[in-house]
């Protein structure tokens, strides 16, 4: 047939098809061919061709050329409308599935958003300074037997860095003292207030390094004169209300007075510079003459910071190298070798070693948790969608027969997923908005609540939407569009063809793995915390209150102690430097016996009077207690000290002389006490000695009779305030102080508990959806089995065995992962629990129980249903 038709010039025909308005294409093309045909017969091919070409060219005119805006656009829009409509109807028809999917996704996305906000908040610390890339803090590595890290430096270091070198464009020293008591006058009355964020003696260059603008006064002159101070607007308002703060006087610890010369704009939330009162550094000598002197190389006071803004092009390594000689020059004898390092500004917030709020790894954990949760929710979605695929096979078949391409169908299903994802995300945004205050409370952050105005976050949410849609939608869409239309329309598809039951199984296993790892984590952390808080510390910590000493003479100190002892609720009182385990500790290098050199380990100096042992119930292994004295006469040592010295027979130690604090404290050992935990369980027991030295006491340790704590405390306060008029009464309980050691672990525990709850919940949602689907598939089978004599237990096992098997497989994967992670976590502790079998049994058991509860109701219902009903169902 075709042979009869001569062909017109191909390219011109194609050109014509390309430019012609689609509405007219067929008619005109028909005309062209008809005319060509006729010409061909009449005039021959050559002429017919020419005429054809001429016709085509003459057709190329405005009325015939297709409009520039292509018509297909219109069609696509209509298609999307239809996708939306169909998607929405599917959603409404399967309310249960939709609810499970949306709930799961919304929950996990809420967590993701919150985690994102949190991570972003922590990463944004101190990034608003103009020269942030060149700002460094000088920190110290202390190399003794082991290396320890301090975020402060000897006070003269900043001076030499500025005076002797040109690396730093600016160098500023700051001495930050937290928890200071501020006295000021308001309306003619003296007020006293405790400022937890304290007070900072600051060199004026500090404000040239960092961008903290003043609202009143001049940054150049404000701190130049001694005894001047600047404070934030917030504090100025708090202290002086509406009065003009400039020129007012504040007094620090009743010791040094400062005149206010400037007001700072409130510090941003995202800075680790916490003090809100900055005073002239030159006044430091009034407060602590040793620290202010130019040769205070002997030790490092915490809070003594040095910041520097390096010149462009100077590398921190150069500076570190240049600082090396000062150690030899100024600390030739010391066994505590300092290495001064430059810590970049961006590292300060995220390096726990130097006192950062959290570690970079914590950020990683948070992100990992977010990804986990997102994955579990997507897994649910994939599971339910593929399980439901059978229901939609007819639709797919019909669409394919009517000419849908696979790609079009694919995008249809993706579009449906997008509807669900978007609904979930909208819910999640609302939820996250409501939850931000709780997150702030929990993580002690100050993330602003109007976080939705943040462009990056909006971008993140949109990205999340796309990601979730693709993650959750791709696989089901792939499966659904894979149907052969004939098989689909005949209803010949079985579950096996639907992307394999195994895929779904492995997804369920993955969810169980995640929740079991989290459960193992929770159990181990809880056990370790209980161990740390309840273990025998080697001393008594119950109902002992530490009351701060008001600075006063030795005499009145003893008088007050005796008055306390007279109170009926007080059992024992000891004057001491600090409790056996305390975050305040004074370390010292000692010299032992006839050795000419100091030992190379740090000795914890527990300076206390003779009642220390009895108050804290320390056990004396050998020898006797020290006799009461006001200066160092005799010493008690712990076992660890002797072990470090290599003395195994404790009797040998008795009578040996110890020289401490450069020889100014010396005395013979008169007894050995049993080791007590002077640190958290993270660290080992350090060598310690107990000696009396009244000048160093700063606390009363008061053992209170457990029954009348409140009244006794009030009586103590009354006596204290009589003795120290005009001072603040401060106290804390020893057991609470010790609990504080584990604050970050507590936060971690709560966090993991929360997230494992969510992960389990999402997993359960998926499980619930899957079991209800399985049951609807197997209703008939159950009916037949029952008719044939299958009992309820048999039916339950029919469904149960599947889940039990999956959970056991998941457990086999989760156990080693959980073991590895928790073992890693426990390495942080010097004293730790053993990972025992029971932890894992408990984890597996609890997952089984949770799964049983989730699927139980549905399985029981189907097991008890009358077979007549289930067999009649079609």
């Amino acid at each position, binding site marked *: 047939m075709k042979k009869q038709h001569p062909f017109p010039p191909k390219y011109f025909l194609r050109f014509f098809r390309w430019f012609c308005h689609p509405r007219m294409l067929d008619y005109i093309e028909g*005309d062209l061919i008809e005319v060509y045909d006729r010409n061909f017969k009449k005039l021959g091919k050559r002429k017919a061709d020419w005429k054809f070409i001429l016709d085509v060219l003459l057709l190329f005119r*405005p009325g015939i050329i297709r409009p520039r805006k292509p018509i297909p656009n219109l069609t696509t829009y209509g298609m999307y409308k239809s996708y939306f409509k169909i998607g929405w109807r599917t959603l409404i028809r399967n309310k249960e599935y939709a609810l499970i999917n949306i709930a799961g996704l919304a929950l996990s996305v809420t967590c993701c958003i919150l985690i994102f906000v949190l991570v972003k908040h922590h990463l944004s610390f101190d990034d608003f300074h103009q020269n942030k890339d060149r700002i460094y803090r000088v920190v110290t590595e202390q190399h003794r037997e082991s290396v320890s890290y301090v975020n402060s430096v000897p006070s003269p270091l900043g001076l030499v860095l500025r005076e002797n070198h040109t690396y730093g464009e600016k160098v500023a020293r700051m001495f930050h003292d937290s928890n200071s008591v501020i006295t000021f006058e308001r309306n003619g009355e003296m007020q006293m207030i405790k400022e937890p964020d304290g007070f900072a003696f600051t060199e004026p260059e500090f404000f040239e390094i960092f961008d903290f603008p003043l609202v009143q006064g001049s940054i150049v002159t404000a701190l130049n004169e001694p005894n001047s101070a600047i404070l934030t607007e917030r504090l100025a308002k708090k202290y002086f209300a509406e009065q003009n703060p400039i020129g007012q006087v504040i007094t620090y610890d009743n010791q040094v007075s400062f005149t206010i010369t400037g007001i700072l704009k409130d510090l941003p939330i995202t800075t680790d510079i916490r003090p809100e009162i900055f005073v002239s550094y030159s006044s430091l000598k009034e407060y602590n003459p040793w620290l202010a002197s130019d040769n205070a190389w002997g030790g490092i006071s915490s809070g003594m910071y040095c910041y520097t803004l390096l010149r462009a092009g100077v590398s921190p390594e150069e500076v570190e190298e240049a600082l090396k000689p000062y150690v030899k020059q100024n600390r030739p004898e010391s066994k505590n070798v300092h290495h001064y390092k430059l810590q970049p500004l961006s590292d300060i917030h995220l390096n726990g070693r130097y006192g950062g709020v959290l570690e970079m790894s914590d950020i990683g954990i948070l992100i990992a948790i977010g990804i986990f949760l997102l994955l579990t929710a997507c897994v649910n979605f994939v599971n339910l969608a593929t399980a439901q695929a059978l229901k939609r096979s007819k639709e797919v078949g019909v669409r394919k027969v009517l000419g849908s391409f696979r790609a079009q169908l694919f995008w249809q299903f993706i579009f449906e997923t997008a509807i669900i994802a978007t609904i979930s995300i909208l819910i999640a945004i609302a939820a996250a908005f409501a939850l931000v205050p709780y997150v702030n409370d929990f993580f002690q952050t100050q993330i602003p609540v109007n976080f939705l105005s943040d462009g990056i976050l909006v971008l993140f949410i949109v990205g999340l939407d796309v990601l979730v849609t693709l993650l959750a939608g791709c696989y089901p869409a792939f499966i659904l569009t894979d149907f052969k239309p004939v098989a689909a329309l005949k209803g010949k598809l079985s579950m096996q063809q639907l992307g394999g039951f195994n895929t779904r199984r492995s997804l369920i296993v993955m969810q169980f793995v995640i929740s079991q790892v989290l459960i193992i984590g929770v159990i181990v952390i809880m056990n370790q915390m209980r161990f740390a808080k309840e273990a025998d510390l080697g001393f008594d910590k119950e109902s002992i209150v530490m009351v701060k000493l008001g600075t006063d003479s030795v005499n009145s100190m003893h008088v007050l102690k005796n008055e306390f002892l007279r109170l009926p609720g007080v059992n024992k009182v000891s004057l001491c430097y600090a409790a056996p385990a305390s975050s305040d500790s004074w370390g010292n290098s000692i010299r032992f016996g006839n050795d000419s050199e100091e030992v190379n380990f740090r000795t914890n100096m527990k300076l206390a009077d003779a009642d220390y042992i009895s108050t804290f119930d320390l056990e004396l292994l050998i020898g006797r207690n020290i006799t009461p004295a006001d200066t160092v006469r005799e010493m008690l040592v712990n076992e660890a000290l002797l072990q470090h010295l290599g003395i195994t027979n404790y009797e040998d130690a008795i009578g040996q002389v110890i020289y401490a604090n450069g020889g100014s404290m010396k005395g013979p050992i008169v007894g050995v006490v049993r080791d007590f935990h002077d640190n958290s369980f993270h660290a080992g027991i350090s060598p310690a000695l107990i000696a009396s030295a009244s000048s160093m006491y700063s606390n009363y340790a008061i053992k209170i009779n457990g029954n009348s704590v409140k009244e006794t405390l009030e009586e103590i306060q009354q006596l204290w305030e009589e003795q120290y008029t005009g001072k603040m009464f401060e106290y804390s309980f020893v057991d609470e102080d010790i609990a504080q050691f584990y604050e970050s672990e507590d936060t971690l525990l709560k966090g993991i508990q929360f997230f494992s709850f969510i992960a389990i919940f999402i997993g359960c949602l998926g499980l619930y959806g899957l079991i209800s689907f399985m049951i609807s598939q197997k209703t008939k089978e159950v009916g037949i089995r029952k008719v044939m004599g299958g009992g309820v237990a048999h039916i339950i096992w029919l469904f149960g065995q599947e889940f039990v098997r999956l959970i056991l497989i998941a457990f086999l994967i989760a156990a080693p992962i959980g073991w590895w992670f928790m073992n890693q976590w426990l390495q942080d502790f010097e004293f730790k629990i053993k990972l025992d079998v029971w932890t894992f049994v408990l984890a597996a058991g609890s997952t089984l129980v949770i799964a049983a509860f989730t699927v139980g109701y549905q399985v029981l219902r189907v097991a008890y249903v009358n077979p007549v009903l289930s067999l009649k169902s079609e």
Partner: protein
Amino acid sequence: MKDYQLGEFEEIVILTVGILNNAAYSVAIKDEIESRLKRTVSMGALHTALNRMEDKGYLKSFSGEATEERAGRPRRYFEMTALGKKAIQYAKDTRDELWAAIPKTIWQSNLSGI
């Protein structure tokens, strides 16, 4: 009444559609014009005119059968609408009026000139 816009070529086309009555499709129109008026008609001009008149509402079209000689492409048949009829009527009337208004002498002088 100036709404009846009809160009010269358009007028010829619509009249031809009328002549062909029920068989008016593009190639037939083209052939008819070519044979009667001895002028060549390009496909482009014809289709443009047909489309424009359809837009104006003088013509309506319907799709015809697909035939072998057109390689399966359908024909598009045209038909005058009532409006189209009014339009050519109007065109003829205005011409006639103009004709009538020409003084007879013009013709005579012309004749005498021959």
